[in-house]
């Protein structure tokens, strides 16, 4: 407010075109259609074109990593903002998915193209079963348990010297064709992104959101909330395990570092920066954070300092994130009015 005594205030008003495109009328004109489709097209087209414009193999690899982190961030965002379960254990999903696909591939010689989806589904089942007893826990406690799981599993592998111990499992096949790997993971990301967006608006998704808002009322309506939470955890952990499986096949190595905190923290940071609860936001956040993190690789652990400071800044001062800000600018205009 520029004037000391508050004589003006800022108003936010929906743009006319936003109101016109609310209902079925959007189909009436190209302009309105374009208004609706443009952001989605920008994202899809951008992601698909990205591998063609970047210089060199190294950055192609970075794009794959972006997609993997984006999958993790999606799973975090879905669980935290649509079901109300804050899982700090992205690394748990990555590790389970990664080790599963590594075992399938090296142990049974299954092609990565089959091993990855199988690892995603079975990884989801395993994670869900392990997390099942924790589902009645509230906020902080669920977060702490999920944070502890990956650390615990890493120590188990280290101590028992199973699954390759500290050396990890080596000799994992990469995905046969480079372009298949590149576009396969981008396609999966887009599929899951739009799939989740669709899901949260179905009746099932409504129930999940209701569990987050007011679990007592859901119980009073005769629904078993643990059942819905378990379903949501299965979906999210499958997505996480998928990310882990892809990661392992990209690096052709699975080790304890798949349980590292990086996989828990960066997706959360991306979600906070991109805007939680939008599902697109986390993808956007990863598109920004991961390349920056790669550029800073030379500085060693300084990059972790860097992105944790960004995370801190966003969560404390700008907790709605970039995506919500962008949506507001796109759909609404602001003006000053006299009071």
């Amino acid at each position, binding site marked *: 407010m520029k004037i000391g005594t508050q004589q003006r205030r800022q108003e936010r008003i929906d743009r006319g075109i936003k109101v016109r495109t609310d209902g079925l009328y959007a189909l009436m004109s190209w302009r309105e259609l374009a208004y609706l489709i443009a952001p989605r097209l920008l994202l899809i087209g951008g992601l698909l074109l990205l591998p063609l414009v970047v210089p060199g193999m190294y950055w192609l690899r970075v794009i794959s990593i972006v997609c993997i982190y984006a999958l993790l961030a999606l799973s975090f965002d879905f669980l*935290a903002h649509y079901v109300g379960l*804050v899982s*700090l254990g992205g690394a748990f999903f990555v590790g389970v998915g990664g080790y599963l696909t590594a075992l399938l591939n090296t142990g049974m010689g299954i092609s990565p193209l089959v091993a990855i989806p199988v690892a995603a589904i079975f990884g989801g089942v395993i994670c869900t079963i392990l997390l099942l*007893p*924790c589902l*009645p*826990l*509230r*906020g*902080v*406690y669920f*977060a*702490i*348990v999920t944070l*502890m*799981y990956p*650390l*615990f599993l890493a*120590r*188990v592998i*280290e*101590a028992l010297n199973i699954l390759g111990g500290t050396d990890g499992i080596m000799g994992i096949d990469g995905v046969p064709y480079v372009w298949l790997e590149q576009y396969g993971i981008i396609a999966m990301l887009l599929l899951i992104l739009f799939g989740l967006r669709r899901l949260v608006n179905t009746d099932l998704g409504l129930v999940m959101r209701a569990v987050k808002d007011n*679990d007592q009322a859901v119980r009073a309506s005769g629904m078993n*909330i643990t059942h819905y939470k378990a379903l949501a955890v299965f979906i999210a952990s499958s997505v996480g395990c998928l990310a882990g499986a892809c990661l392992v096949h990209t690096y052709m190595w699975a080790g304890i570092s798949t349980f590292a905190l990086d996989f828990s*923290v960066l997706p*959360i*940071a991306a979600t*906070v920066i991109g805007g939680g609860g939008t599902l697109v936001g986390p993808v956007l956040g990863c598109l920004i954070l991961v390349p920056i993190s790669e550029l800073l690789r030379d*500085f*060693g*652990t*300084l990059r*972790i*300092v860097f992105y*944790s*400071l960004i*995370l*801190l800044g966003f*969560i*404390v*001062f700008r*907790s709605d994130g970039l995506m919500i800000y962008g949506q507001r600018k796109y759909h609404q205009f602001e003006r000053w009015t006299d009071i």
Partner: protein
Amino acid sequence: MEILIYGTINSVALALYALGFALVYGICRLPNFAHGALYVLSGFIAWTMINTFGSNLLVAVVATLLVTGIIGAVIYRLFLIRVRGMEISEIIASYAIALAILEGLRWGGFKGMTYTLPVFIEGSVTIGGISVDYQRILVVVVGAALVAFLWLFTHYTRVGLALRGMAQDERAALMLGIDSDMMAVVAMGMGSMLAAFAAILLLPLGNIVVESGYNVLILAIAVCIVGGIGSWMGAVLAAFLIGFAQILTVVYLGSHYQMMVALLAIILTLILKPSGLFGQQKELEERV
């Protein structure tokens, strides 16, 4: 005998780790994930005081306590107070702070070499055929004294009573004229000081390494969760439970398993009895 002595020492060490965390959680409802980072940071401050500025040990200790306390309070006042009450944001924000401090130290502070703090008293004594150095005995004595001091502080001083009032019912405390934001800052400062205290006592027993920041955090959480949030006695008992369990696993299974005990304790407690072993009537709050 060996188990008894080292178990006791380990337990007191765990209790020292956990005191600050328990205080901050009990009063501000902030699961302070930066606790371990503050612990390592204070070790680094003490080391700098002694080795770079060449101050004597006592000055270094006092300065470290004060500086860490102030850092904690400032962190709370600047950042965490803005996300107060939003549990998830608190966790993420304090975790981000922890990462920034620890990885910052790893980048700029500790590289390659080993860093140690001097012990207060040299030498050792033999108890029942086991030689125990004085520093470890000091840890036990001071740890016990600190618990007693905190108990007296929270039961008999004005600030202490205000803090307890806030821990029980913040709104009621507000109505009685207790500035809850100020008290939270004070509590965070005290919690950080306790972390520094633990660091000064315990770090001379080994090297200062960045990783210990994460371990201290896990151990502190384990003690608090097993003991039951908001219960002093529970925390102390849990420290002994986990402390002895750790020593026993080290003796019979190997040192690989030491951290697993704490992790397993957290997971099992939260699954089986989320209110902790000694927490009372918290069950309804924490379970759905």
